[in-house]
């Protein structure tokens, strides 16, 4: 590979430091090139789409947009369900259905079903048992953190350093 242009170093001090760092690294047998796994190139190529780059990028963007829209739709549906559930619990279960007309009408019945289905989503949050569950959750988080901390302290294995 091309070597850095030493003439760019505009002061002697920089030039000396740069050269000294190279010599220091040489004492530690650096810079050393690491040999990647032999099948890495094949794995990279296996991930490359079979279509030309521009087409692949367009497909990827379309997929990302669709994914974002889908996630947005899921969030909106969940928020609506939760709102209906809250309305059903704290207010009148038939309220949302009445807004759209009669409860006996098709649309009214569907909304009514949704309200009843959404209630169990909200009810657990109001359960006094949840307050008893909170310390347990904190203990689990503490154990998980300890596990993570101990695992992270294990020395990381290094790949093969070749020439």
């Amino acid at each position, binding site marked *: *590979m*091309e*070597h*850095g*242009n030493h003439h*760019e*170093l505009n002061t002697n001090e*920089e030039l*000396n*430091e*740069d*050269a*000294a*760092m*190279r*010599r*220091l*690294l040489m*004492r*530690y*047998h*650096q*810079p*050393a*090139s*690491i*040999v*990647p*796994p032999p099948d*890495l*190139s094949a*794995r*990279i*190529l296996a*991930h*490359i*789409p*079979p*279509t*030309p*780059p*521009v087409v*692949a*990028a367009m497909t*990827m963007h379309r997929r990302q947009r669709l994914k974002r829209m889908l996630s947005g739709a899921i969030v909106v549906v969940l928020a609506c369900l939760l709102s209906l559930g809250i309305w059903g619990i704290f207010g009148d279960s038939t309220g949302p259905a009445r807004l759209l007309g009669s409860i006996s009408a098709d649309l009214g019945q569907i909304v009514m079903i949704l309200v009843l289905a959404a209630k169990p989503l909200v009810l657990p949050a109001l359960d006094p048992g949840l307050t008893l569950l909170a310390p347990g959750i904190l203990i689990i988080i503490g154990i998980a953190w300890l596990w*993570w901390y101990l*695992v*992270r302290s*294990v*020395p*990381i*294995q*290094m*790949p*093969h*350093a070749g020439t």
Partner: protein
Amino acid sequence: MEQQVDEVQWVAQTLAGDQLAFTHLVERYTRLVYNHAYRMLNDAQDAEDAVQEIFLKAYMRLDSFDPSRRFVSWLLTISSNHCIDRLRRKRQTWLTLDDVAYWLPSSRTGPERHALEQEQQATVQQALQQLPEHYRLVMILRYWHELSYTEIADITELTESTVKTRLHRGRKMLVNALGTDGELLWNMETITS
């Protein structure tokens, strides 16, 4: 220069739909990108994943490659940004079971064990990890990829004077991170020069 002509040609052929041309680029630069990712991320498995993602990004953005620029600089720009993003994400994410399995001490003999024995190289690698990521990046680009200040400035989107400042501080940080031995050797080297 001939190498660059080849690369520009391969890029054009890939853009025209010739997958084989991209294979040449992958084969030429897998080792370089892997080394860069490993130095930045300090984890072989992470580096392998990063290399695959970097080449996929490069493929998707191939039409943004400016033929007047060196392909290696363009690729290292993508690699550097990707590694810094990955380091940031890693700070925020939880470990997966795969990570755990990878980090647990292994009884297998192999390249990893072989490398562990190369203590001196590992010392520098570990010292390098103590540098903040932006300082680590310029140090790797300068001393492991042997790039000029102009190229480093181009890749990192910094001015040359900022690159010089970061390198100056990065050298000091690396020497400190190497401990007493490193400081002694550094003093020796700076006195002799």
